[in-house]
């Protein structure tokens, strides 16, 4: 047996003072198994030691919220006893080391979080960020991640309905893979992880335990160096087939009444799942590790406790229900083992080959886990650029548009989502590539919209504004398909929290998210934090990903973004002031990366969004698209490409020049298509509600035109927009 020392503790990712604290709490030196358990529970990934203090501030309440953060996933009410269980989670570190398995197990893990609560997964989404397209690793990472996401989700048979793909050199050494799942559950049949009652059997079900993924959670709590290849064994290996069986078996067991609590074995495997269940129930737990089904020989207690083998669940059953439960798992050919029981000791006690190999009070691992109030610095709002006439002198609208539509962050992502099964389950009514994915709530008139958003550029320029902006963008995506925004889940991807600047970015993004979600009644109900996205001292841009969901009470009322009919008018809702700083235009055309992000006005945001829903409810809108990256002209082009129709843009009024007007990224704006006979009533309603709008243009021909300044055919812009990613991946 290895002798534990401070050196060994540090190799486990613990700090010296943390090791000292462990010895003080135990009043002795831990043995190696105990040290492993502590290191797994006290790492950043499991303990949230740097973030907990700030996460408490998040806005998590609302009439629609059934379960907020703290469970396997959040739960919201969608009326008629139906509820949606959803969460987003990061799998960044493993995906960089081994893109296929990293991404695949990210999808598998988040789906387990959802069906653990009794919900059948109905949709998957993802947000993936890669380094610069020119970076040597980007192409292979992208290919591997997309295959991994598809490989897992397609096999399980859950549609991947939306997502987001970004490129930025700050991810050259740390890609981001955030996976999100939505599940449907009867709100009276939700399962929680809190154990209750003493002497209840603790059951292990699913795959056997192997040596894969040992210390995965610790790896995800560390920065990368030159030796990351050596970390491959810490990446878990996924088996979607087993997960599909586990899903069906768990849902079958859940239809009965034998489960007291259930928890999937995710990060830190058996360690965190057993401790979490006991801790929430204020109980102790006793586990005989000899009884854990293992797929490799001679596994030690240390390895069994720290393995992150996938597709495993821990269940506390009502006593006497073991046989009934076992029958179900036998039917699905899955392992089923009674490995322990709940106790009143409030300790975790581990036995192996009839010997006690570890005993730790659960409080030490959960409540007494370190919590840091890390130092952070407040970001200053950058000074605005003062662009002069000369900056625009030699520019042509058509050149700018072509360049922007083929910019990697804007260009069409069909190459990616064609590899995801997005139609299985037969309820996908809006596919990827729109404002949000939409699935029907099976057998009802309702539908759920979902989207994932992030805006690292804005968050980097000013974290507080950026944090607000991402929430607003998510809200707009719900509105744009005609859904009432309900709630969000957040995946907070940041650099090294021990650096004051990075910690400041985190604190202020969280503040921004909180402010916007509170104002919009768009609460955060679940999420996770991923720190240490840093390689050799270079961290990522602050990247909170927001996964939003919205409800359509009648799916037939859904709106999409493809232009419908010639002669219809386009209106732009919200004021256009021509904010170019931090825009795609500024970066790509003017090569300017300075200045503040566009300002967020939450009052306008809410008013404008509600007015769109109001118009939709009155059946006055044909098409809707929110204006985001790339501004008005990019949005109009995407709508035109999707609908295969041209647009004649009307002359602009006011002080801004045409580049500022068409490419500025002012917030809280939407473009809507209105039939001519409905124009008068729409204008009347908007004026009455004091909503700012401009008449933007009219749908006609197969070109986008703006006086003599722009004449470009839809086919031309479509080609560039559609082919960038395909050509990039093939060449």
């Amino acid at each position, binding site marked *: 047996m290895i002798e534990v020392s401070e050196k060994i503790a540090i190799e486990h990712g613990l700090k010296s003072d943390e090791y000292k604290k462990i010895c003080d709490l135990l009043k002795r030196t831990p043995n190696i198994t105990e040290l492993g358990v502590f290191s797994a529970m006290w790492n950043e990934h499991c303990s949230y030691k740097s973030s907990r203090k700030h996460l408490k501030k998040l806005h998590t309440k609302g009439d629609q919220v059934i379960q907020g953060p703290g469970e396997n996933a959040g739960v919201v009410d969608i009326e008629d006893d139906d509820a949606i269980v959803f969460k987003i989670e990061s799998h960044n570190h493993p995906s960089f080391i081994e893109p296929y398995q990293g991404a695949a197990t990210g999808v598998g893990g988040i789906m387990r979080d959802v069906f653990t609560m009794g919900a059948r997964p109905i949709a998957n989404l993802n947000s993936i960020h890669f380094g610069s397209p020119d970076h040597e690793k980007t192409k292979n990472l992208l290919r591997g991640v997309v295959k991994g996401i598809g490989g897992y989700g*397609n096999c*399980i*048979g859950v549609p991947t309905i939306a997502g987001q793909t970004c490129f930025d050199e700050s991810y050259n050494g740390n890609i981001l893979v955030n996976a999100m799942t939505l599940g449907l559950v009867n709100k009276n049949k939700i399962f929680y992880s809190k154990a209750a009652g003493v002497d209840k059997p603790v059951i292990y079900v699913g795959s056997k335990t192997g040596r894969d993924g040992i210390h995965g959670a610790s790896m995800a709590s560390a920065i990368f160096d030159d030796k990351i290849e050596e970390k491959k064994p810490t990446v878990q290996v996924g088996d979607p087939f087993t997960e599909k069986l586990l899903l069906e078996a768990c849902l079958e067991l859940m239809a009965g009444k034998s489960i007291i609590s259930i928890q999937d074995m995710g990060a830190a495997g058996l360690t965190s799942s057993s401790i979490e269940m006991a801790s929430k129930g204020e109980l102790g737990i006793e586990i005989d590790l000899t009884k854990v089904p293992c797929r490799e020989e001679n596994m030690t207690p240390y390895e069994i406790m720290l393995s992150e083998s996938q597709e495993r669940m821990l269940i506390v059953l009502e006593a006497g229900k073991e046989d009934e439960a076992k029958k179900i798992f036998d039917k699905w*050919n899955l392992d089923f083992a009674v490995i322990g029981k709940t106790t009143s000791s409030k300790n975790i006690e581990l036995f192996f080959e009839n010997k006690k190999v570890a005993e730790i009070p659960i409080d030490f691992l959960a409540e007494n886990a370190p919590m840091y109030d890390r130092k952070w610095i407040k970001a200053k709002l950058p000074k605005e650029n003062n662009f002069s006439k000369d900056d625009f002198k030699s520019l042509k609208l058509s050149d700018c548009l072509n360049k922007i539509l083929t910019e990697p962050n804007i260009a069409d992502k069909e190459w990616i989502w064609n*590899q995801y099964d997005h139609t299985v389950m*037969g309820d996908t009514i809006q596919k990827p590539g729109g404002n949000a994915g939409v699935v029907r709530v099976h057998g009802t008139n309702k539908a759920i919209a979902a989207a994932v958003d992030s805006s690292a550029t804005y968050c980097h320029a000013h974290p507080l504004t950026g944090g607000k902006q991402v929430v607003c963008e998510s809200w707009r995506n719900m509105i744009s398909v005609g859904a009432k925004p309900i709630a969000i889940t957040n995946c907070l991807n940041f650099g090294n929290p021990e650096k004051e600047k990075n910690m400041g970015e985190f604190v202020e993004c969280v503040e921004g998210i909180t402010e916007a979600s509170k104002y919009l009644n768009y609460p955060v109900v679940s999420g996770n934090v991923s720190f240490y996205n840093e390689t050799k001292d270079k961290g990522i841009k602050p990247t909170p990903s927001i996964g939003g969901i919205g409800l359509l009470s009648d799916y*037939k009322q859904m709106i999409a973004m493809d232009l419908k009919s010639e002669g219809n008018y386009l209106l732009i809702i919200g004021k256009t002031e021509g904010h170019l700083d931090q825009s795609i235009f500024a970066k790509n055309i003017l090569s300017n990366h300075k200045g503040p992000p566009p300002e967020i006005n939450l009052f306008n945001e809410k008013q404008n969004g509600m007015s769109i829903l109001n118009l939709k409810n009155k059946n006055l809108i044909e098409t809707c698209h929110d204006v985001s990256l790339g501004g008005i002209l990019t949005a109009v082009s995407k709508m035109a490409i999707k609908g295969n129709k041209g647009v004649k843009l009307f002359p602009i009024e006011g002080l801004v020049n045409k580049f500022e007007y068409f490419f500025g990224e002012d917030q809280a704006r939407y473009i809507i298509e209105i039939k001519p006979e409905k124009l008068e009533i729409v204008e009347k309603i908007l004026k009455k509600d004091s909503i700012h709008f401009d008449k933007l243009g009219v749908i006609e021909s197969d070109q986008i035109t703006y006086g003599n300044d722009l004449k470009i055919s839809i086919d031309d812009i479509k080609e560039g927009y559609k082919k960038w990613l395909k050509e990039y991946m093939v060449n």
Partner: protein
Amino acid sequence: MKSSVIIFPGSNCDRDMDVALKKFGFENQMVWHNDSEIPKSDLIVLPGGFSYGDYLRCGSIAGKSRIIKSVIDFANSGGLVLGICNGFQILTETGLLPGILQQNKYLNFICKNVFVKIKNKENKYFKNIKKEVLELHIAHNEGNYFCSNDELKLIEDNGQIAVTYCDDKGNDNEHNNPNGAIKNIAGIFNKDKNILGMMPHPERMIDPFLSGEDGSLFFENLMGSI
């Protein structure tokens, strides 16, 4: 009309198929792979998915499962057997249909709408469908149909090609071939035309709010022709 959908571990289009069959009037029942008998049926469907994880080869383990003997008996006695996607793969693995399904030509999973041309209407599956070209949906990684030249000749001579990938006008050439399938084959019959295997999923196209409605024509005809 009675239909049975077989559920293998890893099937994932079983519910979608059940919904579609019921929508068009079938009295459908689900049958577990480990059963040895199939209740009295007018139609047996092997649904899409990843039976047994697609381990070894797509459809190969399902082709040896306990229920499959009954499926083979039913098919050999002239009963209608429909295999969609993974179901098609299983039918080739059992030998009920000739040829094999290889990995897609460009090695990627493909999920998108495609057009298929109906090549033979002298059978219960397509008899009364008025259109020549249907818009259906594919979602597969191994849909690249292949067979030997001798087999191909037999298939062609017997009118066993059911549907081929094409454009919206019915041109079934290499430009409209999503996965590299020989002769653009998207679906084939056995010699007697009572067994149909095809990669496209009609069950995902039964509602104007889904990817389209041409799947409805398929099920309406099937219901009417049995």
